[in-house]
């Protein structure tokens, strides 16, 4: 078993063609908070990964869920942050449009959580995903992605424009959400 990723929240290891995502204990927070967060997030994640695929968003296939651990299919791709160009940003928009149409909010949309493999984009790490059809939740979802564009990619304005194009193509409520993103950005941070 080889560790393939060690994130802030979980250790992801590979066993054959199975990825094991184990949420690790955090000593800094109370045991009650820690275990509740880890258990709830594990279950929700597994459920939403499957749900997203049914909605036309490529995700790994779930094999087993126990306590703080998910076993799932291995996607041998490259992180979007290493290959992103406006065209892929547009296709990311289409993907997220389908996800939002389906009522799922990813909750951690970063360019590290989208994989590119065989000309296809896969959405992974549903660790903070939840079901929500409000404009606000969808707006925050996209605001988070745009923030990653801004904080890690120099040509972020181009990427944002391309994303909007794709998003509008697959999701009928796109305009309203994009408007909300602007508002979220400008909201009273000093109130």
């Amino acid at each position, binding site marked *: 078993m080889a560790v393939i990723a060690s*994130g*802030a*929240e979980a250790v992801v290891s590979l066993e054959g063609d199975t990825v094991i995502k184990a949420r690790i204990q*955090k*000593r*800094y*927070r*109370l045991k*009650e*908070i820690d275990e*509740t*967060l880890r258990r709830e997030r594990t279950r929700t994640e597994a459920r939403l990964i499957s749900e997203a695929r049914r909605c036309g968003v490529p995700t790994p296939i779930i094999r087993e869920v126990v306590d703080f651990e998910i076993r799932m299919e291995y996607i041998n791709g490259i992180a979007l942050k290493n290959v992103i160009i406006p065209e892929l940003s547009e296709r990311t928009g289409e993907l997220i449009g389908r996800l939002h149409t389906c009522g799922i909010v990813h*909750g*951690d*949309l*970063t360019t*590290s959580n989208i994989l590119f493999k065989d000309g296809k984009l896969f959405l992974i790490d549903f660790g*903070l995903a939840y079901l929500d059809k409000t404009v606000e939740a969808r707006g*925050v*979802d996209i*605001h*988070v992605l745009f*923030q990653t564009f*801004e*904080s*890690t990619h*120099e040509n972020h304005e181009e990427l944002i424009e391309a994303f909007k194009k794709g998003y509008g193509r697959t999701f009928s409520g796109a305009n309203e959400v994009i408007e909300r993103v602007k508002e*979220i950005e*400008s*909201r*009273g*941070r*000093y*109130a």
Partner: protein
Amino acid sequence: MSKTLVLGLEGTAWNLSAAIVDEHDVIAETTATYKPLTGGIHPREAAQHHANHIKEVVGEALKKGGKDLSAVAFSQGPGLGPCLRTVATAARALALSMQIPLIGVNHCIAHIEVGRWKTPAKDPVTLYVSGANSQVLAYRAGYYRVFGETLDIGIGNAFDKFARSVGLAHPGGPKVEELAKQSERYVPLPYTVKGMDFSFSGLTTAAQEYVKKHPLPEICHSFQETAFAMLVEVTERAVAHTGKSEVLLAGGVGANARLREMLKIMCEDRAIEFYVPDKRFMGDNGAMIAYLGLLMYKAGYRTPVPDSRVNPNYRPDDVEVTWR
């Protein structure tokens, strides 16, 4: 080599402070603190306080080291409009009468730079937590980027709001911290992290409700544990995302011992360094404004009077950083 001396004026909210620094140290610092009689900070009253005290505060600082100043720096934002305007007016008058350049600085970045000055931190992920601000910041390609921030109110305001609702006087943070020590029972409260951002308003409302059914220390303990877990989680995610190996704590809420402990544990577990400046550099202070002013002055920044209008929503990621 001649030293550069810069006067800095801070007055974004409750604390009015003037300081003179050179490259190495604080030469002088004078402070006058606004304390509301009841309730929280009243912006107009705070501004009035600053107007009443600025002459003596600046006068004292100048008396201790006001010779051969190179520039006058002031907090241009973010902050409370009336307070910012009062202090900016004083800064303009001083710069014009002394015939030296004026430099408007971003208050959030001053918190980071004073930490890089007064601790060994070189390129940290900064958790900046104060009354009105709660942000996770890190430097990348010419800007201090905001990796995560509050979607509604600052953590300090959340503490103050909750504290006021249960009859504790302003500022509520230290009192909540004291009471929290008396309980180890945890009452589940809303934990809201959305991607890299966090939210404290739901938590505050829930705490105000639950306190009707649970002892106050229990809710104080639960409130702190929940809020800080959210902040530390996002800080850790920023560290993981950026690959940086230092964490810096900044802002007045950084005085909380439990928050420090949680950050320290997180950093130990990731085998990275954790830095906290001395208390005098944590809360709002004139020295940090003077020091950032000095860095910017040496990098060639100048703020002509027509461009010196205050900006209550001044974002740290609006400032191009060329002094690093």
